[in-house]
């Protein structure tokens, strides 16, 4: 009886008695969700266009952030460092396409997945070799990102919104909107969608696979850079960031592997669900349930809607 009260009644009582904490939790969940969806966006881009699940997205985030901070530490002014990093990500996209994707055209998905593992290892070693293993501070203020917080009083308590989180939410929404427009309205976007459907068919229609892949990996690199800046500004730039990339998987499940708006919506649902679950129901189970709550949410979702909210229906034929 007490257990039922604890599960079904007490959390809502808590929510009502401290509404400022509820709003704060919702905000934190929103911010976390937006950050997860930024990572998921990189996955979606590459999956949509080349059918590859890019496990190296996490390390690309770290690599982009480290390159930016590395350039800055060598005396390059902040905006020039940003431009140089974008150039480096383009170079990376070019190298990946030339050396990894071109020889593996039309191989089964799991082989390409494995190849991105190899890329991850390579980038970890290369990044540590060039930049060292020390954690670095992200140059948020030099890039013009705001510091400090917006606080407002509410219902006996206060809610504090970090300005950098607000900036992250805005930047993420802008990116999603821009990418969605890009995929729907432009010629290159249509070609990307064609390549996602079938490599062979796209080739036979005359679409240059190499050109498309370089573009899409470059776009993913830009998303990785934005993610790295946002995450780095929140804590610090180190190789521990790479582990967070796994959190993007439940987001992808929820939103669908091939949907850009799905990445944001899925991200927000997972982020908010995770934080609310951890804050109000976590202490019942021993706390720390954040690590698996997102996956369980995704799993339950999968049982009812296997392709995610916005994904394409999987049709199996014999």
């Amino acid at each position, binding site marked *: 009886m007490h257990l039922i009260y604890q599960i079904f009644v007490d959390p809502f009582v808590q929510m009502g008695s401290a509404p400022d904490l509820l709003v704060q939790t919702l905000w934190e969940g929103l911010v976390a969700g937006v950050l997860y969806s930024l990572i998921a966006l990189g996955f979606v881009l590459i999956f949509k266009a080349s059918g590859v*699940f890019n496990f190296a997205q996490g390390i690309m985030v770290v690599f982009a952030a480290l390159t930016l901070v590395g350039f800055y530490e060598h005396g390059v002014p902040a905006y020039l460092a940003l431009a140089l990093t974008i150039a480096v990500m383009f170079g990376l996209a070019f190298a990946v396409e030339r*050396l*990894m994707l071109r*020889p*593996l055209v039309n*191989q*089964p*998905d*799991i*082989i390409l997945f*494995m*190849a991105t*593992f*190899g*890329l*991850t*290892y*390579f*980038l*970890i*070693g*290369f990044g*540590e*070799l060039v930049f060292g*293993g020390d954690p670095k501070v992200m140059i948020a203020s030099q890039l013009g990102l705001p510091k400090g917080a917006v606080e407002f009083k509410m219902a006996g308590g206060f809610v504090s919104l970090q300005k950098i989180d607000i900036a992250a939410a805005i930047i993420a929404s802008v990116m999603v909107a821009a990418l969605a427009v890009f995929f729907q309205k432009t010629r290159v976007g249509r070609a990307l969608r064609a390549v996602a459907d079938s490599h062979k068919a796209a080739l036979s229609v005359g679409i240059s696979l190499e050109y498309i892949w370089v573009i899409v990996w470059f776009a993913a690199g830009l998303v990785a850079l934005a993610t790295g800046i946002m995450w780095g500004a929140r804590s610090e730039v180190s190789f521990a960031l790479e582990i967070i990339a*796994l959190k993007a*998987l*439940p987001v992808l*499940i929820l939103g669908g*592997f091939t949907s850009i708006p799905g990445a944001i919506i899925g991200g927000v649902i997972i982020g908010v669900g995770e934080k609310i679950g951890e804050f109000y129901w976590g202490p019942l189970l*021993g*706390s*720390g*349930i954040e*690590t*698996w709550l997102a*996956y*369980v949410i*995704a*799993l339950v979702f*999968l*049982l009812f809607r*296997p392709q995610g909210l916005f994904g394409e229906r*999987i049709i*199996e034929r*014999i």
Partner: protein
Amino acid sequence: MFYREVGQYKTNYSADMSVMPLLQDRVGIGIILFIAVVIIPSFGNAFFIQAIMIPFLVFSLAAIGLNLLTGYTGLLSLGTGAFMGVGAYACYKLTTYFPGVNILIWIVASGFFSAAVGVVFGLPSLRIKGFYLAVATLAAQFFLSWCFIRQPWFYNYNASGAIEVPTRTLFGIPITGATASDTARYYVVLGVVVAMTWLASNLVHGRIGRMWMAVRDMDLAAELIGIRLLRTKLLAFAVSSFYCGVAGALLVFQWYGSAEPAVFDVNLSFFILFMVIIGGLGSLTGSYLGAALIFILPIVLRYIPPHLGIPIRPATVDHIQYMIIGALIVLFLIVEPNGLARLWQIGKQKLRVWPFPY
């Protein structure tokens, strides 16, 4: 010239259908077993046995387990680390509750606990396929990792949260704990791994293996010809988790000597998955080859510079080793996407017609 079946006549059906029809194959296995049982313990130094051979055998067993699930049945699983952890913790609880019983019995019994957990987390496989199933197994991985850290019952409520392996003996010789010698532990691991590989080989060459492969190739068609999908898939999860559980128990009891929950995290799952993919999906030989490449090659790479006398700092060696491994993985996949086992098969075919080219 040497690898031909010329002159080897089979006189009854069972001989004709045997797994290794060629005499040369059987001689080859015999030589490998001889090297493993006699040569390595006699001539290998402590580092080789303790830090290379024992872990290699443990990882090969886990790779066989994952190969049965992913390679033969086509169900991608990322929960291998957690299932190994279940086996290890089950063995620990069993031996602390019943210290008098022989530890080998508990190592094998812990596999059954792992199998039970595997079946529970394999239930979604009926609705979910392909990559999405991997996410379901990731849920298992993170949930079980959380259990090992946050539920104190698993580590007998001790203060540090880590489990220590007590000393257990077999025929009076200690085989676990700090006093066990390298050779004793090596023989135990070798015995268990050889026996379980033999069992796996029989499974995949028999009716059950064919059922699994049918499910992998096209499960709708398999269902149409009468294979019960639920039972087959759950059996695959059960057997695979059994192997992973035993491997986990061996990992803690024969290699590490103690364990903290961080040992069985998602990195271990990915590690075993790499071995299976590089070694070759759907091949037992591939599991061994993959384990050798992914586990032993980095160690070899780390010791080449000091061996050749090149003065590089250990941290730099570590970085370069990561780069080389990453590049090698991509290179292997480009050259032979079907894994090392396929290369081995091609090698045997070439050997068959040697010295002619085709």
